């Protein structure tokens, strides 16, 4: 982006961006912009420069400075009260989400923030959640002061409508950990208490001690069966009620039988029971669940429009500016929107130059010019000066909000048997069959005692817990490996749905194209070096993304200074160079007529004569052709775009003939297309999209991936979030996911070997607790090792990190 490349790149001491020629300095420090410099000055004033010694360039760029009254809405008590946790009139507690937090410098600075603003009594960072918990003195400072202090040092809290409409505290799941702790404790102690009995035979131990041991074992097993294992019983009960044989049903049955038989043995004095094996299996299954259900603390999958919208917006009433909460906006209110602010409701432009960036909605980052009287849809972001808008529809009625709330989109996916549940079903039938055969055999032999023995021990030894463990550990490890490759899945069921996928539908803008880099094509007179320099000389003054793109394209090292220039915001630059009048900017500004309305154009005229046009469009991601080539062999592919068909030929060449290309698709068309694929072609669809206009399609598809450009991006609700840079390795990821099923089957096969050994004893009615106590942990540990090793190996095979 830097037109003035010198031999050594000068990096901003605050954020590490390259500095342009117009850099600012402070002492021996160099900064890319005034924002970064002012952050440094604040920190320097308060002796907080340790910030810069902990990490190199710890800051984030401050090019977007904040407006003075931006946080005035926090003075509204109603709004402030919804944000704070607790206040006693002296001190107030608040938790703020700071997406900029990324290194130990941030941590250090945020916990020393009381030096910048002494009214902040304490601050504590939760780095994983990117949250800071603060206590401040209400008598001295307001919430607005605290938020402004944070913003001034470069950490602007993310405050959204969601924070004030939904409850604050996200409860983290600690119950699972309590259960594991308790089950582990009971398991270890029961095991220890059982050992003397196993190794010494019943004679060597005094009967009293033996009795004491069994009572203790029984006491320790009670919390396991009643508290730790209760989720298995609850799930099983839900399954039975809805006539759906999930994997928890046979597990709950096995647990009950094991416990019942153990009680019987202990009360009749015939044995010590299988309580050690039982608590062991509960312990391992709980670990498996936690491994699989790990959550990403900074990622939310169920975002709705509320987390995109600001809390309050400026409304003009009788020529006075007021902050009004977004959900109290009325029709015909006049909004005042500043640079970089989001438009929260469908509104008509009444004053000012609007350049709207709809990247939230469509993924297209190139701003669109809106003329007076035209409608701006909610979700657009204003770039440039202040504009005034007349609200046409309330927030809850707007086009975007309707998209979220439409009944169509709410269709829940019907429950279907997952692959492991199907396996467990057959497994259970087989085990029940074996038990019946063995039972009938011993009954006919007249050995009722052995019959009961065989019946119960078969069910004890062959419960499908091994299968549950195999799938939990495989899925858990795959989720972990995928997240390392920046694909974050909502839960383990998504892995299974992905493995069934046969059709992949891509959105174009923002998904297949890059938002950051732009493609520039030039048409017109041949550009001489002289001409290039002259155009650069004008464009260097403009911060508009189009100007930046053209500057990068021209790639001029040393830019001459223009003699005289004038910037018309959002339109272009004009100026005198070598006594010629130049105009560079939009077609309307330069007076050039263009019939091609696709993409964005920058026109150049000299003395009113057109020289040429730069056509700027988003560039396609690298490696796209390769990706489509390798995906084609396994999947049906389609690209669906809201744009017009101008890039049809280019895309056809890039992707190949078999790929279906659809243009001019509205959000509703996209949804309809997905439903068509699912119903008429019986396809299992993976939809990949980024903007809110894909939200419906993402939800309707079997699996929806939202694309994000950086980890803090806000994405629509989806089953998975994939980092933009990883789209090019989608084929490897899909192959890896499909290998998961094989891993589960293989490790389950291994566990069946253990099961057969156990069944060998069980059908004869001679399965002793010792054998069960040896088989159970060895089968569990081999499953954990095999699933871990294989999923790691597969990841290496498909060249994932």
């Amino acid at each position, binding site marked *: 982006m830097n037109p003035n490349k010198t031999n050594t790149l000068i990096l901003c001491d605050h954020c590490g961006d390259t500095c342009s020629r117009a850099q600012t300095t402070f002492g021996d420090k160099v900064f890319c912009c005034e924002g970064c410099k002012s952050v440094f000055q604040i920190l320097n004033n308060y002796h907080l*420069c340790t910030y810069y010694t902990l990490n190199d360039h710890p800051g984030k760029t401050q090019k977007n400075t904040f407006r003075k009254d931006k946080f005035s809405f926090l003075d509204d008590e109603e709004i402030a009260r919804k944000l704070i946790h607790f206040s006693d009139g002296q001190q107030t507690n608040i938790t703020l989400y700071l997406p900029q937090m990324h290194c130990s410098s941030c*941590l250090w600075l945020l916990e020393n923030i009381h030096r910048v603003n002494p009214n902040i009594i304490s601050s504590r960072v939760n*780095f*994983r959640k990117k949250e800071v918990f603060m206590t401040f003195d209400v008598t001295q400072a307001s919430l607005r002061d605290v938020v402004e202090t944070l913003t001034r040092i470069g950490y602007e809290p993310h405050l959204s409508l969601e924070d004030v409409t939904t409850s604050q505290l996200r409860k*983290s799941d600690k119950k699972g*950990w*309590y259960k594991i702790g308790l089950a582990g404790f009971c398991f270890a*102690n029961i095991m220890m*208490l059982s050992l003397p009995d196993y190794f010494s035979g019943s004679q060597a131990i005094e009967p009293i001690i033996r009795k004491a041991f069994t009572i203790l074992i029984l006491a320790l097993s009670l919390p396991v069966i009643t508290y730790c294992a209760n989720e298995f019983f609850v799930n099983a009960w839900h399954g039975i009620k809805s006539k759906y044989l999930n994997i928890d049903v046979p597990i709950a049955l096995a647990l009950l039988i094991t416990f019942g038989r153990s009680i019987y043995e202990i009360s009749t004095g015939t044995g010590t029971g299988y309580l050690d094996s039982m608590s062991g299996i509960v312990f391992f299954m709980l670990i498996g669940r936690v491994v699989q259900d790990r959550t990403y603390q900074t990622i939310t999958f169920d975002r709705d429009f509320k987390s995109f919208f600001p809390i309050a917006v400026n409304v003009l009433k009788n020529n006075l500016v007021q902050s009004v909460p977004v959900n109290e906006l009325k029709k015909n209110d006049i909004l005042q929107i500043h640079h970089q602010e989001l438009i929260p409701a469908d509104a008509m432009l009444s004053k000012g130059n609007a350049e709207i960036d709809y990247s939230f909605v469509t993924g297209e980052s190139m701003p669109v010019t809106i003329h007076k009287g035209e409608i701006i849809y909610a979700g657009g972001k204003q770039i440039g000066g202040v504009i005034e808008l007349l609200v046409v529809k309330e927030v809850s009625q707007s086009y975007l909000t309707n998209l979220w709330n439409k009944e169509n989109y709410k269709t829940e996916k019907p429950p279907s048997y997952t692959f492991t549940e199907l396996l467990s079903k057959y497994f259970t039938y087989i085990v029940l069959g074996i038990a019946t055969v063995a039972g009938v055999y011993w009954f006919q032999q007249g050995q009722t005692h052995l019959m009961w023995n065989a019946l119960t021990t078969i069910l004890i030894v062959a419960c499908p817990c091994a299968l549950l463990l195999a799938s939990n550990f495989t899925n858990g490890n795959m989720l972990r490996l995928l997240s390392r490759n920046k694909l974050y899945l909502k839960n383990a069921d998504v892995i299974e749905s992905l493995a069934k996928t046969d059709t992949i539908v891509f959105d174009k803008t923002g998904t297949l194209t890059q938002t950051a880099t732009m493609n520039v094509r030039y048409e017109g007179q041949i550009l001489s070096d002289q001409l290039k320099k002259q155009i650069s000389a004008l464009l260097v003054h403009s911060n508009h993304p189009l100007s930046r793109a053209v500057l990068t394209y021209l790639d001029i090292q040393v830019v001459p200074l223009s003699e005289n220039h004038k910037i018309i915001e959002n339109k272009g630059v004009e100026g005198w160079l070598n006594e010629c009048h130049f105009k560079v900017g939009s077609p309307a500004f330069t007076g050039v007529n263009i019939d091609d309305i696709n993409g964005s154009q920058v026109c150049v005229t000299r003395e009113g004569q057109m020289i040429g046009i730069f056509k700027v469009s988003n560039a396609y991601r690298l490696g796209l052709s390769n990706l489509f080539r390798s995906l084609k062999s396994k999947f049906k592919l389609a690209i669906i775009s809201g744009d017009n068909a101008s890039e049809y030929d280019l895309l056809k060449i890039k992707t190949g003939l078999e790929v279906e290309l659809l243009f001019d698709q509205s959000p509703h068309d996209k949804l309809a297309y997905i439903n068509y694929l699912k119903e008429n072609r019986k396809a299992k669809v993976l939809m990949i999209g980024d903007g809110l206009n894909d939200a419906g399609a993402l939800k309707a598809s079997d699996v929806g991936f939202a694309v994000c450009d950086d980890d803090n991006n806000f994405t629509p609700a989806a089953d998975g979030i994939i980092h933009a840079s990883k789209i090019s390795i989608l084929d490897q990821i899909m192959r890896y996911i499909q290998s998961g099923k094989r891993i589960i089957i293989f490790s389950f096969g291994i566990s069946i070997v253990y099961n057969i050994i156990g069944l060998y004893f069980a059908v004869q009615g001679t399965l002793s607790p010792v054998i069960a106590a040896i088989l159970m942990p060895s089968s569990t540990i081999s499953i954990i090792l095999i699933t871990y090793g294989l999923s790691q190996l597969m990841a290496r095979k498909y060249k994932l990190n």
Partner: protein
Amino acid sequence: MSVIVLLLLVSLAISGGFLIAFIWGVKDGQFEDNYAPAQRMLFEDGEENNIEKQKEIK
């Protein structure tokens, strides 16, 4: 033999102590953020103090 019963109770008490410590830790949120505490202990406290000390020396 009764010494075994005593040992048994002692071992139960010790492991029970660990269980309580674990539950306490979970409740306190010790396992929620595994990055911040590790970094926090590396920070020098009070840069201001150092500056003041240096001034005193001068």
